[in-house]
C-alpha cells in the first residue's frame, strides 16, 4: 500500500507540473505580446512598458514560470489587471458562491438518482423501469443551461416563486440558498440522469452474483437482499462516477452561473476573458484543473482502500 501511495502521489505531482506548464505556455509563451493583447489598440508605449514590467515580461519564460508557480504554491495568485486587487482575494470571494452551488447540486443529484436508480433495478423490465430509463435518457440529452432557462421561464417568469438571477450574499442564508436553488436543480438534472443509470446497472450486476442468490435462498426477500448486500457493493462504481463527474460539475457550474448572473468563479473567468485580464484567467483555470486532478487522485485512493485488488495494478 505504501508503494502504491508513493507512486500515485508522484504521478499526481507530475500531472500538476505538466498541467501548469501547458496553461502557462498557452497564455504566456505563444507568439505575441500578452501586454499588448491585454491593453488593446489604444495603449501608449509608456503604459505597455509598465504592464510588461508588472507581468515580468522582460525576464525569460522559465523565470516567469517559476515566479508564477511559486506564487500559486504560496497563495499569491498575482494582482488582477482590471480589478487591481489580488486574484486570491477575488477567488476566495467567488468561491463562496461556486462551491456551495456545486455541493448543493451534487447533493440534489445524489438524492434524486439513488432512489430512482434503485427503483429501476428493483423493478427491472417493468413499465416503471422503462419509464425511468426513458426519463433519464431525456435528462442526459437536455443541455443544463437550456433547462435552466426553462426553469426561469416557469418558476421566475410565470409562477414568480423565484427570482430570475442574482445573488443576495450569505448575510441572509435562507435568501442565498433560495437564489442557488434553481441553478442547483439545473446543474443536477444531467448528473442525476447519468448517476441513476449507473446505479441501476451496477445494482443489476451485483444482483446476478452468487452471494445474492445465497442470501435469497436463506429466505431474504428481494428488497432485503438489495438493502443488506447488493447496495453496498453497487456503491463502488457509483462513487467512482461521482468522482469522475466532478470536472463536468465544475464546467457545468461555470456555465450555469452565467444563466443566473451568479457572482461565482465562472463569471470571474468570463469577465477575465472579455476584459482580457490574462492574470485572472491563467490563475483561475489552474485552480480549476488542480481541483479536478486532486479529486481524481482522491477517488483513486478511496477506490484502492475499498478494493485491495486494484493496488497491484
Amino acid at each position, binding site marked *: 500500500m505504501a508503494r502504491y501511495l508513493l507512486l500515485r502521489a508522484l*504521478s499526481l505531482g*507530475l*500531472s500538476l507540473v*505538466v*498541467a501548469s506548464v*501547458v*496553461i502557462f505556455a*498557452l*497564455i504566456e509563451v*505563444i507568439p*505575441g505580446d*500578452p501586454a499588448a*493583447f491585454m491593453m488593446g489598440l489604444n495603449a501608449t508605449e509608456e503604459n505597455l512598458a509598465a504592464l510588461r514590467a508588472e507581468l515580468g515580461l522582460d525576464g525569460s519564460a522559465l523565470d516567469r514560470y517559476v515566479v508564477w508557480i511559486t506564487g500559486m504554491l504560496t497563495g499569491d495568485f498575482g494582482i488582477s489587471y482590471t480589478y487591481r486587487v489580488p486574484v486570491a482575494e477575488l477567488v476566495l470571494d467567488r468561491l463562496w458562491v461556486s462551491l456551495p452551488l456545486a455541493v448543493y447540486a451534487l447533493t440534489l443529484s445524489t438524492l434524486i438518482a439513488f432512489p430512482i436508480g434503485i427503483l429501476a433495478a428493483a423493478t*427491472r*423490465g417493468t413499465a416503471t423501469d422503462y419509464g425511468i430509463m426513458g426519463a433519464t*435518457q*431525456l435528462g*442526459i*440529452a*437536455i*443541455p443544463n*443551461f*437550456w433547462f435552466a*432557462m*426553462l426553469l*426561469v*421561464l416557469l418558476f421566475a*417568469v410565470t409562477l414568480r416563486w423565484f427570482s430570475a438571477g442574482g445573488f443576495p450574499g450569505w448575510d441572509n442564508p435562507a435568501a442565498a440558498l433560495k437564489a442557488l436553488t434553481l441553478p442547483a436543480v439545473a446543474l443536477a438534472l444531467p448528473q442525476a440522469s447519468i448517476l441513476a443509470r449507473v446505479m441501476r446497472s451496477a445494482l*443489476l450486476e451485483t444482483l446476478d452474483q452468487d452471494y445474492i442468490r445465497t442470501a435469497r435462498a436463506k429466505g431474504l426477500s428481494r428488497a432485503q437482499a438489495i438493502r443488506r448486500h447488493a447496495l453496498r457493493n453497487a456503491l463502488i462504481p457509483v462513487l467512482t462516477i461521482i468522482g469522475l463527474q466532478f*470536472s*463536468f460539475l*465544475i*464546467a457545468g457550474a*461555470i*456555465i450555469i452561473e*452565467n*444563466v443566473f448572473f451568479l457572482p461565482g468563479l465562472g463569471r470571474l*473567468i*468570463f469577465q*477575465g*476573458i472579455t476584459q*482580457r485580464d*490574462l492574470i485572472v*484567467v*491563467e490563475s483561475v*483555470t489552474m485552480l*480549476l*484543473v488542480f481541483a*479536478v*486532478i486532486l479529486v*481524481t487522485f482522491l477517488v483513486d485512493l478511496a477506490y484502492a482502500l475499498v478494493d485491495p485488488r486494484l493496488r497491484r495494478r
Partner: protein
Amino acid sequence: MSRLPPALLIGAALSGVFLAVALLSLVWIPHPITGVSIATRLQPPSGTHWLGTDQLGRDLLSMLMVGAQTSIAVALIAVGIGVALGVPLGLAAAASRGSPLDEIIMRGNDLIFAFPSLVIAILITARYGPSATNAILAIGIFNIPVFARVARGGALPLWTLDYILAARTAGKGKLRISVEHVLPNLMNLLIVQATIQFSLGILAEAALSYVGLGAQPPTPSWGRMLAEAQTMIYTHPMLAVLPGLAIVLMVLGLNLMGDGLRDALDPRLRRGRG
C-alpha cells in the same frame, strides 16, 4: 441477423432528419438570414415564417436549419480529431503493453481528462479570441483520450488471442498486426463511441456558443440563439424554447442510436438486456 433494436431505428431516424435538414440548408432555406429586417422582427409563426422571426427579423426556421450545420460540423470534425489521434495512440499503447510508451500515453490521457472542453476553450479564447475553430479544437482535444482509452481497452484482450500469436509467428510486426488484425475487430466499439462523442460534441458546442466561446455572429448556432433569446424570455419565450428543443432532439437521436448500435453489434448484450 436478428431484428434491429427499436432504439436504433428511432435514433437513426431522428438524427437522419437533422442531418438531412443540415444538408438541405446548404442549398435551400425558406428565407435568407443575412439581412436585418426591423420591419419583420419578432413576428409570431405565420404562413410566411412557419416558426416566426427573431429580434433581427430573421426567419427562425432558417436560422435553426443553418444552426444544424454549425453544430454537426463542429461535433463531427471534433470526433474526427479524436479518432485520428486517439485510436493510433491507443493501438500503440496496447501493442506495447506495460512499456514506458504505454505508461506515457496513458498518463498523458489522464492529464487531458483534467482539462474539460470548457477549460481548453477558455484558455484558447482568452488568448486568441473566440471562434468556431476554438470550439472544434477544444472538443476535439478532449476526444483524444476517450478514443485512446477505448482502442487500448478493446485491443488488449485481442493481443492474447491465438490468431494474433499466429500472425506474430508468421513474422508480422506490431504495426502491421495492429492495422491488419486488431483495428478491424475494434470497429464496432469505435463506431459506438463515435456516436456517443458526436452527441456529446453537439452538447458541448451548444454550451460553448452559449457562453460566447464558439461560433461568432453572423454564423447561426443553436447555443448562441439561446444566449440571444435569454434577454427576451419574458416577452418571446418561443425564441428560447425552439433552439433548445432542436439540441435535445438531435442529442436524444444520437444517444438512442448509440445504445441501439451497441446492442445490435454486441451479441453478448443481446441476451442479457434488461
